[in-house]
C-alpha cells in the first residue's frame, strides 16, 4: 500500500467515522435521558438530507440546511410527544418494537414523498472534481466540511451539557430521574428535548454528508446499525468515547476495502458489533461495574 493510498483511506475513514459518531451521540443522548435505544435514529439523518435537498432549489444552501434541521427537530419532538411521552413504565421489548415501527413509518413516508431515487445536495464549496492537497493526497473540500462541522457539533454539545443550566438539568435526569424531578426539573420535557437534540444533530450530519454519500429513503437503517455499533464500542451513554469509537470503526471499514470485497463491508462492521457485544458489552472505554447496574 502506497502512502498516498494510505492517507486516502484514512481520510475516507475519518469522514465516515465522524458521521457514525454523530449518530452514536444521538443514540446516547436519548439513551441517557430515557433508557431507550431509538431505532429510528438513522431516519433522522435521512430526513435531514432529504428535506434540505428538497428545499435547496427554493433558497440558499445554508438556509435550506437550517430549515431542514429545524423541521427534523420538530419531527423528533412530535415523535416523542405522540408515541413515548404518555407511556407509563414501558418495557424494553415494547419500546424496541415501537421505535422500529416508527423507523419503518418514516422510511415508508419518505419513499412515497421522494421515491426510490438517489439524491444529493451540491458540494458546499467547489464541485465533484475540486480537491485540496493534504499530505500528498487529493481530498475533496467536502470532507473538510464534514469533519469540521461534526467536530463543532461535538464540541458545542459537550459545552452545552457541561455549562448551560438546561444541559445540567438533562444530565441530572439521566443520573437520577426521581431526584431530578424532586428538585423541580420537568423530566418529561427533558426527554422531549433529548429527542429534539438528537434529531437535530442527526439532521445536520445528514445534510453535510449528503454530497459525498448521497441520500436515499432507506439509508437510515445502515447508519443506525453502525451508529449503534459505535455507541456500544465506546460504551453506551458515553458521548466522548463514541467519537473515538466512531473514528476507529470508520477507519477500520475504510481499510477493510483493501482486503475484502465491497459487498461484505457492512458485514464486517456488524461482525465487529457482534464481537464487541459478546466480549466487552460495556464497551472499549466503559467500566464493567457501571454497565452491570444499567438495564439494556
Amino acid at each position, binding site marked *: 500500500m502506497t502512502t498516498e493510498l494510505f492517507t486516502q483511506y484514512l481520510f475516507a475513514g475519518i469522514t465516515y467515522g465522524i458521521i457514525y459518531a454523530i449518530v452514536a451521540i444521538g443514540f446516547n443522548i436519548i439513551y441517557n435521558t430515557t433508557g431507550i435505544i431509538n431505532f429510528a435514529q438513522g431516519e433522522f439523518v435521512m430526513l435531514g438530507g432529504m428535506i434540505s435537498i428538497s428545499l435547496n432549489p427554493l433558497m440558499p444552501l445554508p438556509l435550506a440546511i437550517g430549515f431542514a434541521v429545524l423541521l427534523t427537530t420538530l419531527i423528533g419532538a412530535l415523535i416523542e410527544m405522540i408515541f413515548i411521552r404518555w407511556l407509563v413504565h414501558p418495557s424494553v421489548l415494547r419500546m424496541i418494537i415501537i421505535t422500529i415501527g416508527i423507523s419503518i*413509518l418514516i422510511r415508508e413516508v419518505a419513499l412515497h414523498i421522494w421515491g426510490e431515487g438517489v439524491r444529493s445536495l451540491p458540494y458546499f464549496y467547489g464541485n465533484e472534481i475540486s480537491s485540496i492537497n493534504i499530505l500528498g493526497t487529493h481530498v475533496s473540500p467536502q470532507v473538510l466540511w464534514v469533519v469540521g462541522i461534526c467536530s463543532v457539533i461535538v464540541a458545542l454539545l459537550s459545552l452545552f451539557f457541561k455549562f448551560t443550566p438546561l444541559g445540567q438539568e438533562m444530565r441530572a435526569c439521566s443520573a437520577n430521574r426521581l431526584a431530578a424531578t424532586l428538585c423541580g426539573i420537568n423530566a418529561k420535557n427533558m426527554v422531549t428535548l433529548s429527542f429534539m437534540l438528537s434529531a437535530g444533530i442527526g439532521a445536520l450530519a445528514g445534510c453535510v454528508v449528503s454530497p459525498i454519500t448521497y441520500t436515499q429513503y432507506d439509508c437510515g437503517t445502515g447508519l443506525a446499525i453502525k451508529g449503534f455499533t459505535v455507541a456500544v464500542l465506546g460504551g453506551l451513554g458515553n458521548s466522548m468515547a463514541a467519537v473515538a469509537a466512531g473514528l476507529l470503526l470508520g477507519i477500520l471499514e475504510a481499510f477493510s476495502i483493501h482486503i475484502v470485497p465491497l459487498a461484505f463491508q457492512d458485514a464486517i462492521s456488524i461482525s465487529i458489533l457482534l464481537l464487541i*457485544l459478546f466480549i466487552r*458489552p460495556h464497551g472499549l472505554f466503559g467500566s464493567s461495574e457501571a454497565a452491570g447496574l444499567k438495564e439494556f
Partner: protein
Amino acid sequence: MAVKNYLSVLILIAVVVFIQLATKATDTSYYLTQLTMTGYYSLVIIGLCLVMGYAGQISLGHAGFFAIGGYTSGALTTYNLTLLLEQGNGLVSFLSDKGLLISTLDLYGEAVLYVNPWLAAILAVILTACIAFFIGIPVLKLKGHYLAMATLGFGIIIFRVVLATEIFGEADGISEIPGFTLFPGVCINGDFGNRVMNYYIAWGLVLIGVILLLNLIHSRVGRALRAIHGAEDAANAMGVNTSRYKLYTFVISAVFAAVAGIFLTHYNGGIGPSEAGIMKSVRYVAIVAIGGMACMWGALTMGVLLNFMSLRGMFGSYDDAVFGAIMIIIMLFAPNGLLNLPVWQKISKSIAGKEKG
C-alpha cells in the same frame, strides 16, 4: 396434552378443511396459492412465538434462518453436478452410488444431476440448527436492546452474504428449483393440479408444528420458559438452567423457520434475497406482537390474516407502512396483543356471569 388443547387442534383442522371446501364451492381456488404460502409463513411465526412469547427473547433475525433453509436447499437442488461426476469427484460419485442424486434432462436435452431434495432438506435443517446453536450461545447471553441489535445484525449479515455470493444468485436469487417429492405421488411444487394437495401439505406441517409446540409449552420445559420470561434471575435461583432452555427454544424456532423456508422455496420454485431482508424479520416480530406474544393461537390467527392480505396485495405499495403502523398501534394501546385487550375479558366475564346467574 389437555382436552382443551385437543379441542383447539380439532378446531384448527376443521377450519383448514372448511376453507378448502369453501374455496372449492365458491370457485375461488386461486386463493389456495396464497393460503399455502401463508401456511409456511405461519410456521415461522409460531416458532418465533415460542422464543418471543414464552421465553421472552426478541429475535430480529428469523428471516435469516428462513433464508438459510431455503437457500441451502435451493442451491443444492439446482447446482448441476454432472461435470463434477465426470471429473471423478469422490463425494459426488459416492452420493450417486447411494442413489442420493437425481438425474434428468433439461429443456435443451442436457443431462442435469442434482441432489435429492430429501437430502438437501435434511442438510439445510442440520446447517440451520448448527448456526442457530453457535450463534445462540453468545447472543442469548444478551438482553433487551443488545439482544435486539445482535439478532438484527445477524439477519443483515445473512442478507449481505446472500446478496454477494454467486452460488446464491446474488440479487436475482435462485430460480427453477425443482419440486420436492415427499413420497411417490406427493410432491411440493407450484403446479396448478397440485394446488389442493400442496395446501394440505402446508397446513399439515403447521398442524404438526402446533401440536409439537403445544406439547412443549404444557410440559416442564414450557413452565421453565414462562418462569424465565417472568423473572430470569428468580428462575435461575429456583434451579432452572435458563441459558440451556433459551438456547433450545432458539434452535427449535430456527428449525421451524428453516423448514418453512425449504418447503416454500420448493413450492415457489425460487427464492430471492428479499426473503432474508430485515423487513421480513420485523414483520414476523410484528405479527407475534399483534397476536399477543405468549399466545400461539393469537399469533397464528393474526399471521394468517395479515400474511394472506399482504400476499393478496391488499395493502398495495403501503405494505410495509401498514405493518409499521399496526406494530406501533398495538404496542401503544394493546401491548398484550389484540386478543388480550381488557374489552374481551370484560365480555367473557359478563358472559360467564350471565351463565351463573
